[in-house]
């Protein structure tokens, strides 16, 4: 049984998506427990795989019994297992949250939204579980297509934002596919591990170089790396709360995972240093991304829109860690992915809770929120601390490793940019905390109602629980970051640094 986990983790949510229609036809209210149950099972499978891999090393699973490199290989090492736990974990929190949120925002459409939710989790898990380049494309499109569908359910202007996302997302996926085709022409293989051995003699071929460029551009479009980010803020802003609470933490981070695989496991960093300085270009783009993202975030008047720009800034941190091509940089890229999934899930779900109660998320509307929704705002504050990088949250450790990586690479300009972006982070998050905590609409100190009595008015427990769980995950991953580094990241550090 346990050796079938890699296939089951894909098959179970895929079949569940198909079964959602009959279940929803019996009673629409059954969809919610069904979603929570299946995603819970997926989470248990992912944790089981993670324990198995930490104890006994990477697994290779031949899909349908066809041996690699001819068949599709599901290859799971520590990084895949970590990504699977993160995806199913954030998916589980979103599933818990979806009950009251879908009922309020998508009345009558819960069945369809639940089915799409299953497909989205299937696609995301598929991207990280498979070791076959074409299979990655198929799962990438499954995840994207279900994401388009879910985002289009959102507010008034959501369809237009979705259409722009579809166009950009399809260009990205097509570029990736074309790159895979070029690699297939020059080697005749699609298996990632096989290609890693076949490619080194061909490093000076122009076809391979074109393939690398096409694949990296395609993935950069999918993960909204500056300057290919224009589709992201609007699409995530218009999405329903649950959807943005799952899409925002996961999609760009899975793109980061793919970039790690392409640069370190498909090619070697040596290839990029010897032939074409893609890592240098990427690191400068990342620096611009994290500054521009933060500056745009400061300019926003709406909390959710501000967070969308913060996603773009965080993509910069991940790509910078990858592109530094040294041990500390690599570690920081993975820690940033972990931190981002926990933090963005916490902050976006908390923002969804604010929208659930207030109707919108304009920053000047947030007065007295600390007394009205104390638990939500507590979680939001922990998330904001992690974004800024205050210990003991995970954000502190990821930034620490990133700074160490910059020092090791001797890039002093990057250190200045990182510190500047941290200050910008402080400005845009503490502005929200100030509005919610210290601002009074009409300060009238002469009367006793200067601080009017605000009743506690929290969201339903099903929404509050995932927010608090995500907030505690931020602290736990921060305190356990040493465990993460020794057990997960050190075994997969690529050779040759």
């Amino acid at each position, binding site marked *: 049984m346990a050796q079938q986990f890699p296939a089951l983790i894909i098959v179970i949510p895929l079949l569940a998506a198909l079964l959602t229609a009959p279940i929803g036809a019996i009673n629409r209210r059954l969809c919610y427990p069904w979603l929570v149950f299946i995603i819970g099972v997926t989470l248990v499978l992912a944790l089981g795989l993670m324990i198995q891999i930490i104890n006994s090393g990477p697994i290779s699973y031949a899909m349908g019994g066809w041996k690699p490199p001819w068949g599709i290989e599901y290859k799971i090492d520590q990084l895949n297992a970590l990504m699977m736990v993160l995806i199913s974990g954030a998916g589980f929190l979103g599933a818990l949250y979806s009950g009251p949120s879908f009922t309020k925002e998508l009345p009558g459409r819960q069945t369809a939204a639940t089915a799409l939710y299953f497909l989205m989790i299937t696609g995301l898990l598929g991207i990280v579980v498979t070791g076959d380049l*074409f299979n990655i*494309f198929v799962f990438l499109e499954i995840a994207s*297509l279900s994401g*388009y569908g879910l985002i289009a359910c959102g507010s008034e202007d959501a369809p237009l934002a979705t259409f722009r996302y*579809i166009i950009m997302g399809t*260009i990205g996926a097509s570029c990736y596919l074309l790159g895979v085709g070029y690699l297939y022409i020059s080697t005749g293989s699609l298996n990632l591990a096989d290609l890693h051995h076949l490619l080194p003699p061909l490093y000076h071929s122009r076809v391979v170089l074109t393939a690398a460029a096409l694949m990296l551009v395609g993935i950069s479009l999918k993960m909204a790396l500056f300057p290919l980010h224009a589709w992201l803020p609007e699409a995530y802003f218009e999405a329903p709360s649950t959807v943005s609470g799952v899409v925002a933490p996961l999609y760009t981070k899975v793109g980061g995972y793919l970039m790690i695989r392409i640069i370190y496991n498909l090619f070697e960093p040596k290839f990029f240093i010897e032939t074409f300085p893609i890592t240098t270009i990427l690191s400068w783009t990342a620096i611009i991304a994290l500054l521009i993202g933060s500056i745009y975030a400061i300019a926003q008047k709406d909390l959710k829109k501000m967070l969308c720009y913060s996603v773009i800034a965080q993509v910069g941190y991940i790509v910078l860690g990858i592109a530094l091509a040294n041990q500390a940089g690599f570690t920081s890229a993975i820690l940033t992915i972990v931190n981002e999934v926990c933090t963005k899930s916490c902050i976006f779900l908390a923002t969804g809770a604010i929208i659930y109660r207030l109707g919108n998320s304009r920053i000047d509307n947030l007065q007295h929120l600390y007394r009205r929704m104390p638990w939500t705002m507590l979680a939001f504050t922990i998330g904001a601390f992690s974004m800024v990088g205050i210990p003991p949250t995970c954000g502190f450790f990821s930034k620490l490793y990133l700074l160490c990586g910059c020092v090791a690479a001797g890039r002093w300009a990057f250190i200045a940019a990182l510190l500047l972006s941290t200050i910008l982070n402080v400005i845009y998050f503490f502005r929200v905390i100030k509005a919610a905590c210290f601002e009074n609409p009409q300060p009238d100190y002469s009367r006793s109602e200067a601080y009017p009595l605000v009743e506690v008015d929290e969201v339903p427990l099903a929404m509050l629980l995932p927010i608090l769980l995500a907030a505690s995950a931020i602290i736990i991953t921060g305190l356990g970051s040493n465990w993460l580094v020794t057990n997960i990241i050190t075994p997969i550090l690529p050779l040759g640094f």
Partner: protein
Amino acid sequence: MLEFIISKYNFWLYVILMMIGLYAMLAKRNLVKKLIGMNIFQTAIILFYVSIGVKKGSVHVPIIVDSHGHGAQLIHAADYLNPLPHVLMLTAIVVSIATTGVALAVLILIYRRYQTLNEDEIIHIRQARQKAGV
């Protein structure tokens, strides 16, 4: 030069098609035309994959005639087209159809909200709404 173009004509054709698609996606203001551009873009890549299955001197499509265990003829791989890119493209065609379907459904939603599919007009309507909202 001419020989260079003719000997690699499949690549030239797919690049030209792809650029037509890209131009339509970037420059056209009508959303349906953008979608058509996207389809041309995807089709170009599908044709590229199909064309790389061809080998010099291979004439047969890969159907194995007599392979029921004993008495099977020895198969010369060089006589057959490479079937793998074609099989991959069956999946890619499904993906592209699904994308088109989702995009068309989204376009119907857009038309219901704004009564137009021209991007300039939609932006105009949204700006007017924002002003009225403030």
